């Protein structure tokens, strides 16, 4: 399959065939990750800037490792070490980077639409590593890839997304990917943490976590940002944990082989019971491993695309 997309801004740009192709490519690269020498010359001579204007550990490391394992030169730029702190605009930062003739930018930014803003102005590929509340397509792809490796197919499966959906780019991108691949999606969260106009989303919405958990094949917990309490969106963390957190009872109500996912970083004991995070049902570390393979696949496809 010839890859023709210039940028990856959200899952909605991809077709089902595109996603399958990413999964197949990632499967191939995952094998490289298990070799004693985990480096191939595939992207030798290519360069990518990892531009993280918002803190990140796993996504940045994952992209960095993905690039290096393909022999791509990766350059890191954080907001604190860039001219953004001197008042430089996003446009000028981007144009400066492109003048250095790079092949791609991986961007994490606090503003929704920031990746699209760059993509409009740059000739090189832009890969969205999370923009505001909008999208986190590489996380959705690695979540999908993790489940694909467990199940073979996502068709007919039901996935419950639990937690602060209103502010979650992971949830937004996952809904698009999971429904495109034939899965059903459920949301469960207090009303204050659900997006407006939820009725137009292709999901079933629950306010009772036990009802929501019944028979589901996977539960994806989202991190609760503790400042939501100060913002007046919930009364306290204890109540949230009790009524909307994932505990053993919900796992009992779910499918016997239920899988547990979390994009991290986790608040153990808040949105997820600590023991469950470490249990055999948990795919949290598989997600991290899948992340490197999926990002290798994405760097490969986007940087070697047919221009």
């Amino acid at each position, binding site marked *: 399959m010839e890859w023709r997309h210039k940028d990856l801004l959200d899952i909605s740009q991809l077709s089902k065939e595109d996603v399958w192709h990413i999964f197949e490519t990632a499967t191939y690269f995952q094998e490289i990750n298990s070799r004693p020498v985990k480096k191939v010359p595939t992207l030798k001579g290519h360069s990518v800037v990892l531009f993280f204007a918002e803190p990140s550990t796993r996504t940045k490391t994952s992209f960095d490792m993905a690039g290096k394992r393909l022999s791509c030169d990766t350059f890191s730029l954080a907001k604190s070490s860039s001219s953004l702190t001197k008042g430089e*605009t*996003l*446009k000028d930062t981007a144009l400066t980077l492109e003048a250095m003739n790079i092949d791609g930018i991986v961007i994490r*930014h606090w*503003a*929704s*639409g*920031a990746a*699209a*803003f760059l993509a409009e102005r740059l000739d090189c590929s832009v890969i969205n590593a999370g*923009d*505001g*509340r*909008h*999208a986190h397509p590489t996380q959705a792809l690695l979540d999908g890839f993790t489940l694909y490796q467990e199940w073979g197919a996502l068709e007919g499966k039901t996935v419950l997304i639990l937690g602060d959906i209103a502010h979650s*780019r992971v949830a*937004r991108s996952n809904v698009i990917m999971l429904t495109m691949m034939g899965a059903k999606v459920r949301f469960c969260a207090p009303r204050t943490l659900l*997006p*407006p*106009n*939820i009725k*137009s*989303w292709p999901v079933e919405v629950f306010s009772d976590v036990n009802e929501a958990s019944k028979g589901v094949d996977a539960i994806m917990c989202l991190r609760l940002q503790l400042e939501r309490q100060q913002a007046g969106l919930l009364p306290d963390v204890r109540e949230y944990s009790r009524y909307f957190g994932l505990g053993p009872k919900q796992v009992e109500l779910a499918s016997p082989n239920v899988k547990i996912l979390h994009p991290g970083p986790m608040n153990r004991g808040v949105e997820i019971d600590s023991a469950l995070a470490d249990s055999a049902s948990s795919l949290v570390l598989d997600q991290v491993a899948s992340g490197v393979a999926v990002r290798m696949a994405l760097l490969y496809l986007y940087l070697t695309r047919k221009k």
Partner: protein
Amino acid sequence: MTNPELVIRKAVWKGEEVDLLVADGKILDIIPSSDAMYEGAEVVAARGYLLMPSLTDVHTHLREPGFEYKEDIASGLKAAVHGGFSNIMCMANTSPVNDNAVITAEMLNKAHAAFPNGPRLFPVGALTKGLEAKELSSMHDLADAGCVAFSNDGVPVKNTELFRRALEYASDTGKPVIDHCEDPYLELGAGMNEGAVSSLLGLAGQPDVAEAAQVARDLLLAEYLDIHIHLAHISCRKSIDLIAWAKKRGVKVTAETCPHYLLLTEEAVEGYGTDTKVNPPLRTADDVEALLQAIREGIIDMFATDHAPHAAHEKEVEFMVAPCGISGLDSALSLTWELVASGKITFDDFIRMWTTAPCETFGLPLNSFKKGDVADFFLFAPDEEWTLSPETMHSKGKNTPFLGQTLKGRVISHFLGGKKIV
């Protein structure tokens, strides 16, 4: 009869070919077209053009003093006169704020120096000192200096007690209060409507109830105090329902809406184009329909541009940090003319919304083509097409979501007080 100094010959007014006779800056007569000779008069051949009374815009931001790089009084007035406007009311959110007579006088001096024969500038004074919504401004001073209304536009007054006192105090000056209706606790300045599109884009949205809640407060206060209030840039059905209810009860309320609320919906924000970021935000197709119906029923009294020019570098940023506002003076006439051409509103509504209602509401010189009216009018080519571009715009602000669009209807020449300005 006095001899006319100017004759506009064979122009069309309300479907009839007429001659417009002007003397001493006023309309002498409008008569069926003829080939009569008028000795000493300048005769302008106008066959094929519509005759239109000049428009009045009750809501602009001209940015001077303080933000002249976005717009200054001269450039704003230039855009106005090319766009068909003779009267412009400008809001007080300048730097320093127009909350004292010195600033008002300076604004008027600048306007007169740039355009001694018009278009005319009518400043709107700040309702509260520094627009801080803490203390009332010196409204009598401001009115004496030339302010025609008072407003905290851009910074809604959330303290209802203070707003009540402001309405009462302003009423003593005989000048109306213009309220920016927005509950500031509900995502102030989000720049987009809360709903399906904001949800998909992951942007903070402002719900329509943020506007409607404040509209309800204002209407109840206006009724209780028996004082006229003017509601700025109404954008949604809920507000309209409330205004209709109030008008039925006899509440003294007038309301405006802007061209962009009639021509665009929240879908325009997809792609994060910051030129679509405006406050109140672009709403839904249902709101657009409600606004059009409200115009036809007279619930919305007038158009306004809410002309809000910004520099290019201020808008070429992330959506969340971009300032709100659309530069509107250059395009408002053509955009709203499209509503007439497509049959969505009548010609009579168009004239009422742009000329009679704003002038009567704010006591500005009115031209309704009656003998003795001030001779402010323009010749209009209703079918002439032009493209809205940075080159065709006279405002310094090129920030409009209509950029690049082909518009229909254009000002050919514009006369103010009987003198040709354009």
